[in-house]
């Protein structure tokens, strides 16, 4: 019992409790709507782990939200709320597509060029938001929400522009294949490639049936580097100091304005990187007309909060999130449970992780109850003695 109490006092416990509560409420919802909860859970698990290609897809879908999650966590740790991750992500996709379509170099040059230009796009947009905050005092939440919509319409503008519109579709032209970051992108769709892979079902599942790409490795690398930057470098110390107390930081000689711009630059750059990697790494390798925000940035917020704004914590958190989203689609198809229930579950989990003191509170309650029991016990034994 005291082990449990000790565990509940650790920061990760709050997250786990939130996840558990979210799952329980989702199961209740499934029950209430009249579906079989056991089958639902089994299908969810099967939809995530049932085949190598499912696992691969979960990893692919985790990549962008891991990056936006890291970006949001990073900004949050330095005192900024980057709700504009979505817009910076979109600008990353726009710039990467424009560069990827217009330029055609050998892959060794093309891939870094496309990916880095996308990241640069996001970084500049982030820096603009930071600049508006640092110089003019406009709150970053307002500017970044507005830039989200500006970027959405910029994307639609580019898609429908004469130079980039792919006729008879709702997309722009796909980028030149030299910019693809999948594993063996050309070979696997060639006739020999398909023939070879048909003989090797396992490889076919992983290579041909998914867009397996190098993005996740990049994202993990970024998560670790940003974590080190924050915790182990002078710059990180300065940024965190600004986040904790702006006035104290200024008083101790830190250039607060510069630090705000820099922080948003880095955060935006990571979001732009997420966008660029999605363009190079997954089909259809291009922009499509957006109706609403696709949610890569907003899901990044959820990933960050589930991870308690730890950049490395975003790695498991993004995988978990992605597994729920991807497995949720299978649940909807096989069991018939509306995929909205999965969204409600994620919402509940995020809601409960927002209460950081929940697990310690449970620990307190257990301790109180135990001390009361002890007292009762003591009284009873006293009574018996008497």
């Amino acid at each position, binding site marked *: 019992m005291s082990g449990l109490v000790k565990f509940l006092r650790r920061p990760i416990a709050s997250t786990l409790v939130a996840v558990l509560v979210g799952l329980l409420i989702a199961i209740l919802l499934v029950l209430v709507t*009249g*579906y079989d909860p056991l089958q639902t859970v089994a299908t969810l698990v099967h939809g995530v782990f049932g085949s190598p290609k499912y696992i691969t897809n979960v990893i692919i879908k985790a990549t962008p939200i891991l990056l936006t999650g890291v970006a949001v966590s990073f900004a949050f740790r330095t005192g900024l709320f980057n709700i504009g991750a979505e817009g910076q992500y979109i600008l990353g996709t726009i710039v990467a597509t424009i560069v990827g379509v217009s330029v055609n170099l050998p892959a060794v040059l093309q891939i870094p060029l496309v990916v880095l230009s996308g990241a640069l796009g996001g970084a500049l947009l982030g820096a603009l938001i930071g600049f508006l905050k640092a110089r003019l005092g406009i709150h970053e939440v307002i500017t970044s929400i507005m830039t989200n919509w500006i970027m959405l319409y910029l994307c639609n503008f580019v898609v429908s522009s004469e130079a980039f519109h792919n006729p008879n579709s709702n997309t722009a032209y796909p980028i030149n294949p030299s910019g693809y970051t999948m594993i063996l992108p050309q070979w696997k769709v060639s006739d020999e490639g398909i023939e070879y892979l048909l003989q090797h079902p396992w490889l076919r599942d992983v290579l041909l049936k998914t867009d397996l790409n190098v993005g996740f490795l990049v994202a993990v690398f970024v998560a670790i580097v940003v974590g080190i930057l924050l915790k182990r470098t002078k710059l990180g110390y300065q940024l965190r100091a600004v986040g904790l107390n702006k006035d104290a930081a200024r008083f101790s000689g830190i250039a607060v304005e510069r630090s705000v711009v820099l922080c948003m630059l880095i955060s935006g750059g990571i979001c732009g990187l997420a966008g660029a990697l999605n363009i190079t790494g997954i089909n259809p390798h291009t922009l499509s*007309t957006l*109706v609403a925000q696709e949610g890569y940035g907003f899901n990044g917020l959820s990933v960050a909060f589930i991870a308690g704004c730890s950049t490395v914590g975003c790695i498991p958190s993004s995988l978990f999130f992605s597994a729920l989203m991807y497995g949720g689609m299978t649940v909807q198809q096989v069991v018939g449970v509306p995929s909205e229930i999965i969204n409600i579950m994620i919402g509940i989990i995020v809601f409960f992780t927002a209460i950081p003191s929940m697990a310690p509170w449970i620990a307190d309650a257990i301790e109180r109850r135990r001390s009361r029991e002890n007292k009762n016990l003591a009284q009873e034994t006293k009574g018996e003695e008497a």
Partner: protein
Amino acid sequence: MGKAAITRRSLLAAAGLGGLSLIACGGSRGSGKAGSGGRKVAMVTNVGGINDQGFCQLSWDGLKRLRDEKGYDVSYIESKLDSDYATNIDKAIDYGAEYVWSIGFAMADAAAFEAKINPDVNVKFGIVDANTSGAASLTGVLFKAQEPSFVVGYIAGRTTKKDRVGFVGGIASDNIYAFEFGYMAGVDYAAKELGKRIEVERQYAESFNDNAKGKSIAQKMYSGGADIVFHAAGSVGIGVIEAAEESGNFAIGVDMDQSYLSPTSVLTSAVKRVDQALFDLTPKLLDGEIAGGTDIILGLADGDYLGIPEHHEHIDDKVYQDALAVIEKIKAKEIEPPATEEAYSAFTKSIGIV
């Protein structure tokens, strides 16, 4: 004592929960999937989703009828993003579907790719509104949208009082051009009959989902003097119909009878019954009665797939009867509604309008 009390309380709680779950399970047993065990057919929606008030919803209606009337085991997967198309088709295959429908031309590449990489699986594919691109197991289903568009254009031409009508398109593509030029030809045909000129104002919304944009385009058309606007623009058209209702003008719906959106303002609709097509074609394609691997192009003459709704409270009865006569002429190939700009200019020349 204290300990015992707690245990009792938690026992009660557990029993309560258990009871609740039993009740709920009992409820669900009755509503088990109808027709499971039948032939498995799946569809994958485009990003419009299953409740798009149009295309995907209609397709799902068709599959639901297969379930209810023929005991098929049907399911759908909603795509949230363009990048989901291929993986979702793949999921449908894993589910054991014998036939997988992809809904909408945006999915053409994904459907062709999946057909190409799954030659060893016992599954056939169909795509609505797009060509097959050559894979042997993939069948394209296309509609001659120009034909019902011609008919509603004819009705618009006969009904307009201001000699000015409008057209709002979604995203410019060959599919939507068929609506546009069919409609214009229909308007011209009516104008020729009446011996006058009718202007057609046209604009594309560059979207299939932006209601607000559809509304503002239509408002501009109505205030510019048009009194009837036809849309072929998915849910952008919901905005068009709203604008018609607010300004007291008429709109013409598309895909299904859209008069339910505004009984007072929807003149008629260019109906394109994807549901009927999927209901009729799926069994034939499954059993090989239709070989598949090619395009199936459905026109007015091919059955109950295209047309206009029967009710016509806003249309003069004479005009409605004439419209039915036009339908017969199209079926008999006396009129061939144009689907492209070139065909349209040839058509206007042939009826003597320049």
